[in-house]
């Protein structure tokens, strides 16, 4: 099966983002932006709590926008996506709310709890090996799927939905000097960066990855999309890919000012600090931005750290945050 050529990448305009925001208002939570109270001597850091979305991740924004834009005929045929993680849950949730059938191509080794959650949301699951899922992601196609693909990152409307978060950030933190978001596929950073650069280009936009999986950082230094040679799996499973897909590089590069990298230990400490001071649970990817802010990589602030999600097993969370916080 040969995939039809993909439409060329185009910038996410402010009007795309504003229209998305209106479309998704009834589905998503306008999440709070809270100051992390660390006392004197620390930078002014504020957390954008996307882990509080109904599916506990920002992906609901893009999913809700993509589903809301379907025509009547497309609604009847349904939607499909490729993800065992937050994107799959987001598309399943948005589709159920809109009364649209949904299928999800998932990697057969995905955690049972995540698969169960998608089934409970009414999605039909198609289990495949990792390589098959990756090929489907690159080709935007999968044998036997006839509905509309909501690509988990390389999709104009999906990204425009994420951009709504950028509008909220600028409303709630008009004095922000920098915004940091995790880079996985690159959709979050493209959406938020597009909104911020359209409205207030002086605000710095940074992408952050774990040191064990940092292809965006390597690409940023090289000036073009690259693979990450020594990729390692870790508890930060929602960010840090094996490579930056060229189309996503094209989307991200114009709206991003820098690439940051933090260690797994810094990430773990940020998770603990967030639990203690903000009383929220962040998954590994959701703590990367705070880790970078605490390490001073994004300046003196005010810094907005996007807490992109909170989906991880509670026992794993407790294990990761166990032990005293000795230093930041």
């Amino acid at each position, binding site marked *: 099966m040969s995939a039809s050529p993909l439409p060329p990448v185009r910038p996410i305009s402010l009007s795309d983002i504003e229209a998305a925001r209106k479309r998704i208002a009834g589905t998503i*939570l306008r*999440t*709070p932006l*809270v100051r992390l109270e660390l*006392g004197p001597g620390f930078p002014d850091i504020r957390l954008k*709590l996307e*882990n*509080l979305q*109904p*599916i*506990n991740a920002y992906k609901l924004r893009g999913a809700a926008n993509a589903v809301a834009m379907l025509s009547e005929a497309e609604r009847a045929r349904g939607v499909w996506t490729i993800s065992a993680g937050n994107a799959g849950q987001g598309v399943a*949730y948005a589709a159920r709310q809109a009364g649209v059938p949904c299928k999800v191509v998932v990697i057969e080794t995905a955690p049972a709890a995540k698969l169960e*959650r998608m089934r*409970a*949301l009414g999605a039909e699951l198609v289990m495949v090996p990792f390589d098959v899922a990756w090929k489907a992601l690159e080709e935007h196609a999968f044998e036997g799927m006839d509905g509309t693909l909501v690509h988990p990152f390389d999709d104009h409307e999906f990204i425009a939905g994420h951009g709504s978060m950028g509008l909220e950030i600028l409303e709630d933190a008009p004095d922000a000097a920098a915004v940091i978001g995790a880079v996985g596929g690159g959709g979050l950073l493209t959406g938020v960066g597009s909104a911020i650069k359209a409205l207030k280009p002086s605000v710095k936009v940074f992408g952050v990855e774990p040191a064990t999986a940092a292809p965006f950082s390597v690409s940023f230094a090289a000036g073009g999309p690259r693979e990450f040679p020594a990729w390692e799996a870790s508890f930060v499973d929602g960010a840090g890919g094996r490579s930056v897909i060229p189309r996503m590089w094209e989307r991200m590069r114009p709206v991003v000012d820098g690439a940051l990298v933090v260690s797994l230990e810094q990430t773990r400490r940020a998770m*603990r600090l967030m*639990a*203690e001071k*903000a*009383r*929220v*649970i*962040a998954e590994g990817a959701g703590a990367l931005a705070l880790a970078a802010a605490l390490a001073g990589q994004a300046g003196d602030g005010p810094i907005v750290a996007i807490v992109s999600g*909170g*989906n991880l097993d*509670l*026992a794993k969370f*407790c*294990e990761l*945050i*166990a*032990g*005293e916080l000795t230093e930041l």
Partner: protein
Amino acid sequence: MADDSLLTLADIEAARVRIGPYVRRTPVLTSDVLDAAAGARLYFKCENLQHIGAFKARGATNAVFSLTDGEAEKGVATHSSGNHGSAVARAAALRGVPAYIVMPKAAARPKVEQVERLGGRITFCDNTQAAREATTEKVIAETGATLVHPYDDRKVMAGQGTAALELMEDAPALDVVLCPIGGGGLISGAATAVKALRPATRFIGVEPAGADDAARSYAAHRLIPLTEVHTIADGLRASLSPDTFAHIEARVDAVATVGEAAIVEAMRALWEALKVLVEPSAAVPYAAIRDGRVDVEGKAVGIILTGGNVDLDKLPWLSEGMR
């Protein structure tokens, strides 16, 4: 006590204006997982995400900012081993006046540090109710400070009620609202707000079976203070005052109780589904739903999650092997 002598909606609306600049409008969260388990639509008002991690910031701020300048400059005083002490210290700092906080010597170290960080002046006392009260009286005699009682204070009760005003605005029409009962400050304010805005809404208070003075008093139509307390829900160990009991009698439709295991299970389920930390006291209302103690089938239910201050190294489900 006649109804017109109780707190009114106007008191709570005035509190809301007074404390508006100093407290957070906390989010209302939902979860498809918890809804499916309960067979109901649940709306969680997250006061665990309030400043100092508890709704107590509301009442204390209303009390401190209601004082005249003359009263305020001598400071405020209270006794507390928990969230109320932090709330009073924070409110006093915001008004620029001293806060004298009496704490038992056995108070948890993080709580003491939090009060210190907020600028509270701490006096330690022995770990009995009598010692706390005597020490507080002494501090007040020496300083001229005004007492801000944790719950037996109309300004505190009205401030706590503002959480329910926001919940009623941010959730669709609620059939039932649940909140925990400790000393009764929150439930007095919240039930006043809910019944004034939507009289058809059922208001249910929930408390641990091991600190069930409200359930006993409600059934007997007279105040029966606690003589013995056994619960992990450390925020709910206080006894009602005559005034908070009068509000519960007049404005609450039922009082339910839950056991200790149900509280811990509910706490864990809330962490898992909502991705926020709740302390045991805050899990008590949801425990009543999970344990089938209240009937919410098919209903829209508001639940006030009261606080999120926990010791991360002493979680009730952490086995030794995991530590």
